[in-house]
Structures are given as C-alpha cells and as structure tokens.
C-alpha cells in the first residue's frame, strides 16, 4: 500500500493541471475503475458516463438472485449512491458517449454537451448478439444484459408459463434454472451438438445437460431456430425441421459483441474488441479500455483474447487505475469465472488453450467433481470445478506455478491438493 504513494502523488499533480478522467461506460468495469482510482489516491475529477439510468451494478445476479426476487436494488448496486458523492465522482447517467475527439481530448455526449479529458477510460461493454430471424422483434422476445432486461424477463416468468431459451450458454442456463425455481417451464434450444459448446469441456456440458434435464428443462441440441411467430406477441419458436414449439416468452442468449464503434471511429485499433496492452492502454497513451470491450493480452497463454467476466473487468480496472496513478503494474491474474445453477456452484480458472488431455477428479454422478485441462507437457491450463471449491483454488495455484503434474496423482482423490500444488 505504501510503495506507490510517491508515484501516486506525482500522478495526481500532473492530472490536476488537466481535465481529469472521463470513464465512458458505467457498468461493472467503469464503476470499479472510478473506485480504484480514488483508492489509489487519484485526486483529480472523475466523470462516469453511462447509458443506463442507474449507477453501476452487478450483472451476475440478474440471471440468478435478481430474477428470483432474492436481491434488492441496494444489494445489486456496486456501491451505494452516497459513495459517488462521498468520493467526489460525478455521474452522468442515461447519457451515451457519442464520439471521441482525440485531437482536442474531448468526448461528445448524446445530450449535445462535451467533456474534456486528460485520460479517458473506455468501459463500454458488449451488447447481446441479435439474430436476424423473422419474428425476432415480437414482444416477448427478450435478451438479458441490463437490469431493465432482467425486469422484463422477470415479468414473463410465472408458475405455469413456458419460456423458450435460445442458446445453451451460461446466461440461458442460469435463466432456465431461475425459471424452474419460480415454477415456470423452460426449454433450451442449442445449435451446437452440446450445451456450453464454446465455453466448457465435454464432461461439463454433459453434466449440465443431465442436471437441467433432471430439473425438468427440456434440452434440444443440434437444433436450428429459424424464426419466432405469434399474434401481437411471441407464441412459438420455429425450428429448421418445421417443428413449432409453443412458448409464452423467448430469451435469446447467443453471445455478445463489443461496443467498439466509437473507438473504431476515433481510429483506435479494434479486432473484435479494442486492442489494449497488459496495462489496459490503447495505442493512444491517454486512452485506456477495460472489460468486455477489450481484446487483451492473455499473458499466461501467449495470445490475446476477449474475456466476458467480472474478474476480467476488475483486473483491467485496477490495471488502468494503477497506470494512471503511477503505481506499479499489478501482476497478471489468472482469468476466472463462476456460475450458479440450482445447487451447482461452478468455478472455472484459466483458459482451455493448448489442451492435450482432460483429467477428471471426482465422479460427476455425485455432483462434485473437477475437470483439469493439461497441455502436452502436463501443465495445468484450466480447471472447471463443480461444487469443489478446493479443486478450483488448487487449480488456480497449479496454473500459476506452471508445474508439470502427474495426471494419475491429480485424478486420485486421496492425493492432497495442497501438497500437489506446493
């Protein structure tokens, strides 16, 4: 905490001469960046601009606790409203950043005003991918990204209603679990041969397929949706083979695309995400980008990628805030992710790149197991843990240590993980 204090003071002095920091985007990443800047001692002005009408909040509960009515607006909020006043963070909500003028160091807002910046942090997030299908615009065809989206979905879920879920990814599966908890029917339509095809291993897909089936969710894989139909609102999903599946609402969760347009228009490099370095800097030294928006280095895996997760948003928020305040760059974190469905707690650490073999520890039939992904040399690249938090934490350590691991020892549940990771 003390080692960066001198540098932080320097950083604030240079910033005082300028116009402070503008954060474009008031989601989890933007909110975290504002808080981290103050925590790191930044004293200049901070303006947080966001298109939603409410201050930054946590998105993960939207498909879970919020949908089930177990969360309040206060518990959803990233920080209480008073935090922004106390920390002297200006918020410009229900306002969009329309353009970046790099030459004059200004952003132009949707309300016609402009704000000058010394440093700009882009935290514009991503938006749900839309399907160009007939009937997609019918009332009752929903997506889930914002609190407003979640409220529309919540209004559609009642005991006895039938929810079609298009896309067997995490959002869809979490929503299916919440729908079942609320007494609604749900069925999932997935184009690929298995659930979570892009984001999980086959054993994990098989486990979730069985779990949802056991909870009464019908899973249709290898299933192509060709349209939605209904009179005045959605009443059925149309499949490529001609089948019509009746529903009262449809949730589409088929991935997200980064909101990179204004960055691209300003001449910043975008490659399915705004390109940043390991400190969340773009090629413009005064512009940073963080969160779902970015194409970022994945230093452990010698490649770049776009990660859609809260830990990614927070890591990059800290990187940007550290860089701006002249603190030492935080050491790279291992990407991780979590999902809660029914009584299943999934935690994933690392990314499944260069995987040569999978090692399963524990029995999926018991509902508690972990899938370790090893490369050809036997380094752990990734761990997917189901109701096994110790395996998750051990996996994180193993990934970090780059130790060559004996697969048989790892699979053996009598092997002490702490000793293995030591």
């Amino acid at each position, binding site marked *: 905490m*003390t080692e960066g204090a001198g540098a932080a003071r320097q950083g604030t002095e240079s910033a005082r001469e300028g116009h402070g920091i503008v954060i474009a985007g008031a989601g989890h990443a933007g909110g975290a960046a504002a808080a981290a800047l103050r925590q790191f001692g930044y004293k200049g002005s901070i303006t947080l601009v966001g298109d939603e009408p409410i201050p930054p909040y946590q998105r993960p509960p939207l498909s879970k606790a919020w949908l089930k009515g177990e969360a309040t607006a206060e518990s959803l909020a990233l920080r209480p409203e008073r935090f922004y006043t106390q920390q002297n963070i200006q918020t410009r909500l229900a306002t969009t950043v329309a353009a970046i003028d790099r030459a004059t160091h200004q952003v132009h807002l949707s309300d016609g005003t402009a704000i000058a910046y010394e440093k700009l942090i882009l935290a514009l997030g991503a938006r749900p991918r839309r399907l160009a299908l007939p009937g997609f615009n019918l009332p009752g065809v929903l997506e889930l990204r914002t609190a407003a989206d979640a409220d529309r979905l919540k209004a559609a879920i009642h005991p006895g209603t039938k929810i079609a879920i298009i896309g067997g990814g995490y959002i869809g599966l979490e929503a299916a679990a919440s729908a079942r908890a609320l007494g609604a029917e749900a069925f999932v339509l997935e184009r690929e041969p298995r659930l979570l095809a892009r984001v999980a291993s086959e054993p994990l897909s098989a486990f979730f397929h069985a779990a949802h089936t056991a909870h009464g969710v019908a899973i249709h894989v290898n299933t192509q949706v060709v349209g939605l139909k209904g009179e005045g609102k959605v009443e059925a999903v149309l499949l490529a083979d001609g089948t019509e599946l009746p529903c009262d609402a449809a949730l589409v969760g088929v991935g997200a695309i980064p909101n990179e347009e204004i960055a691209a228009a300003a001449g910043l490099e975008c490659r399915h995400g705004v390109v940043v370095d390991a400190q969340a800097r773009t090629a413009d030294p005064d512009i940073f980008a963080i969160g779902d928006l970015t194409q970022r280095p994945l230093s452990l895996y010698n490649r770049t990628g776009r990660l859609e997760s*809260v830990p990614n948003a927070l890591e990059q928020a800290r990187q940007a805030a550290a860089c701006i305040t002249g603190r030492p760059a935080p050491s790279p974190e291992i990407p991780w992710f979590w999902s809660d469905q029914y009584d299943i707690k999934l935690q994933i650490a690392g990314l499944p790149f260069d995987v040569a073999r999978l090692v399963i520890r524990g029995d999926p039939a018991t509902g508690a197991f972990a899938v370790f992904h090893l490369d050809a040399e036997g380094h752990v690249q990734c761990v997917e843990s189901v109701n096994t938090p110790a395996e998750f934490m051990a996996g994180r350590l193993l990934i970090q240590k780059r130790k060559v691991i004996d697969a048989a020892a790892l699979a053996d549940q009598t092997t002490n993980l702490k000793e293995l990771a030591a």
Partner: protein
Amino acid sequence: MPKITFIEYNGTAHTVEVEEGLSVMEGAVNNGVPGIDADCGGACACATCHVYVDAAWEAKTGEKNESEAAMISFANGVEPNSRLSCQIKVTADLDGLVVRMPAGQH
C-alpha cells in the same frame, strides 16, 4: 448501527458503521475501505475478501462453512483466524468488531 474497524496491512485503521444484515465485506466496499477486493460480490467464489478476525471476536463471528473453509485454505497467508468477510453477517452482537487485512487479495 454496529461499528466495524478494518485495519489495513500497513496499519491504517478505518472504522465504519455497517447496517445489520449486510456482510462485513459489504461494509468495507460500501464505505470505500481499501484492501478488500470482493471480486465475486459475495458469492463465496473468489477468496478476495480475506480478513483476520481479532481473537476476541472469533466466537461471535461463527464457524466457517465447508465451502468457505475449502476456499480460504488456499488463500495467501491463511491463519486459523482467517475468514472470508462476505460470509460474516453483521449483527448487533458484532458492534466493535475488529478485522485485519492481509498484504494483498490477489
């Protein structure tokens, strides 16, 4: 409202009032107390809200559940009085609670 004192690794103390029913972690985050990251927002999924509970308060803060115990056993600098502060609910009984923070959460 119960008062909780958070002591940073460098010794800086922050005493804040926390509404009953919130977690000790939320008390820190809502008041901008540095040193508790709480990346998962209280889902007991990340172990970045690690604190050491002062000896006098160990009994009143209750027992770790299995999941918390498993997570925290791998955290950096774990001690017998280590807790995940998202798993400690604030009650009137905890008025005066003192927790210390580790060198880092990552």
